[in-house]
């Protein structure tokens, strides 16, 4: 691990393209849940800007509002107060059909529990978003096979989720999330249920996607290996952003993350 320590500090940050634009912006984001009179405030005002081509990790203990934050920026839920702008468009103004289009074409989702459709084969799982997006079946099948090859599951395209291991299912989920070439990937604990080796493979895929294809990746995670590949880190605690920092501004040592503390 000590070699790792040197590597972490030695890797230079990604070149900063001067004309980066904001792909997701939140302004004063607040969310509370009202359950039979008991009000739980999940987010208490979050302002953040996420740039295209970025790899940002969101960290925080459970109950900190991480998942809620993800729901907001993924257009899966609407805030109680404040606004979310996706590509400069206020998400609250969108109709149901526009939201569906958004989720289909612009944003890809990867969940900790894979969320594959159990009665469809791997290929069918991957091609479903393409079908929703209006791709013809033959074309969809071709692209689906390519994506499965990309994640290394080319021979298992006809297997159903129940016949695959966790890692393989997660890889299928990744392939699925890339189906319509989204601009943003939202990953909720992608390596949470996986063993070390498989998790490493997943991280490599994500890194490749981010560097080569320029996909914006937003990851919620506990996995410290994510630190290797991300550009920025964000800590959320008690519904507020505790800290956002670029990786090269941090001193990372085993067991602790130093640098400026909040």
């Amino acid at each position: 691990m000590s070699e790792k320590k040197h590597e972490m500090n030695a890797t230079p940050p990604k070149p900063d393209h001067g004309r980066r634009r904001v792909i997701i912006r939140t302004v004063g984001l607040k969310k509370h849940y009202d359950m039979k009179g008991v009000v739980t405030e999940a987010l208490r005002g979050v302002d953040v800007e996420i740039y295209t081509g970025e790899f940002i990790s969101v960290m925080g203990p459970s109950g900190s509002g991480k998942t809620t934050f993800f729901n907001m920026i993924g257009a899966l839920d609407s805030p109680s107060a404040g606004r979310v702008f996706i590509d400069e468009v206020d998400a609250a103004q969108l109709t149901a059909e526009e939201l569906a289009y958004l989720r289909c074409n612009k944003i890809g989702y990867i969940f900790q529990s894979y969320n594959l459709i159990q009665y469809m084969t791997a290929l069918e799982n991957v091609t479903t978003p393409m079908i929703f997006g209006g791709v013809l079946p033959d074309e969809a099948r071709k692209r689906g096979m390519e994506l499965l090859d990309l994640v290394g599951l080319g021979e298992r395209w006809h297997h159903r989720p129940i016949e695959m291991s966790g890692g393989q299912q997660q890889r299928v989920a990744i392939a699925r999330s890339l189906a319509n070439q989204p601009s943003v990937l939202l990953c909720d604990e992608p390596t949470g249920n996986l063993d070390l080796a498989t998790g490493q493979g997943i991280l490599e895929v994500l890194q490749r996607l981010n560097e080569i294809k320029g996909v914006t990746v937003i990851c919620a995670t506990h996995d410290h290996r994510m630190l290797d590949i991300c550009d920025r880190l964000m800590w959320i605690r008690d519904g507020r952003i505790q800290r956002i920092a670029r990786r090269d501004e941090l001193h990372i040592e085993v067991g602790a993350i130093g640098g400026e503390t909040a």
Partner: protein
Amino acid sequence: MKPIQVADQPRLGLLRTTRITVDGIRYRLFRTSVTVAVIAMAVAFLMNILSESLMKRAVAHDTREQIARMHTVHDWAARLTRPGTPEEIIASLSRAEEHDAVYRETAAMAKLTPEAMAELHRSAREAADILRFFDDLDYARRRALIHAASGAGIFERLGTPTGFEQFKTALAGMKSVRFIMRLNDLTRFLSAWPKTLARIEQVRQGRAQAIRNVDAARGGRTILAALAETGGEFGQAVRDAGFAFDAQVTAPGVADRAQRILDQRRLEKSAESILMLQAIAQRRNVVPTDVTVAMMWGLLRGRRAATWYRGRLGQSIDTLKTENQKLARESEELKKNDEQIRKNNEQIKLNDEKTKENLHTIREKLVPASDLTPERMTELARHRNREAALARAERLTVGMGRGWMGLGERMGWLLFVSMLVCVIGISNAMLMSVTERFREIATMKCLGALDGFIMIMFVLESCFLGVVGGLIGAVLGSLIGLGRMLAAFGTTFMASVPVVDLLAAMIVAVGLGVVLAAVAAVYPSFKAARLAPMEAMRVE
């Protein structure tokens, strides 16, 4: 703000949606089986009722003529021997139309002018309606309205001021009962009633006179014997007396039937003699006291048995004759012995009585039946069987409703309630399905599925189940209904099964199953479509 191009968010092709739906069903086979079973039961219930009702209607239709013909002989026998009570005259007149034979016959016999006859006909119809109204009423209400009066007595009672008052008051107090005519019309009818009654009496007299004329031609014969004659003279005498007894159609049919009844009676009498009882008992392997008339008729359905029976008749006659000869010889012997004269005389008397009894049996019971050929016996047995089935059919089809597909009003209500229960059951099953699949639905929405797609998916799935359940239920219900009906009517009515009607009813039933399933799925699928995709993000 840049607008988002919704481009062509496609409506998913029906084929693909179908494939996805079918895969989904295969995956959750057990629960879908439960839903299918619910639909199948509801449709089977509907189909059962429909098939029974259709079968009854078909049988009623097919047998109407035959049943009418079955009653013809008895109707004529009654008409030619009794003038009829006022109620009977009212009933027959009300059933007749102006061009009917009965109408003209009555007018001629009662010597009524056409206008008088028309008036009588109208009054008879009104009277018949009133009588039917009171017949259909339940006992409590009837008693309140007209106390214990019945038949023509009702009109007598209503004709009195107190009777009418009581009727009016009681009727006003019954909210759910509506009299068939306005009270003004009723009053008019009642004031004309004495004249009507007088005319009815005229009809009675006329008929009585005609009957007396017929009696002369009858000679000493029973009416059935007279009707059964083949010569036609009696028929002519009946026509001369004024009855509409046409020679072409009615007379021959009646003659056949009357002859058949006479012959049947002959055979039944033969089965009363002890010798024939024993013969039948032996053949059927029972005790003689257990032998019934039905047993005899059952035997005679087969030609060989009929031949055997006739043989035994002849045998029995010979046996008794032989016994008579023996008794005669014995009596002769006894007369010669002086010592035992008193005892012998008693014995002779006994012998005489036995001889007489045997002669009586031979003459009254055995010989008439032995005139019949075995073929005739078998023919009679078959006719009797058919008539028994017809009588049973008549009884069973009496309570038939006149509505759509032969259903009555109450049945419609019952069906509605059962359909409602079915819808609720399916709704419940579908709601469970939605709840179990919320993850899947949320995932689909994350991938870009439109709300409408989710709804279509669920409704389509429900429709599939509706088709399958409907088919199973329709077949099952028809089989059960038909089975029960054939068991009740007897297999002789197999030919009456209304196949085309049943198929139509099955299509309707399956269609109903699909509609029910679709309707039941609307609310759950609506709820499903509205599920927020954020459910998918929740970590277990």
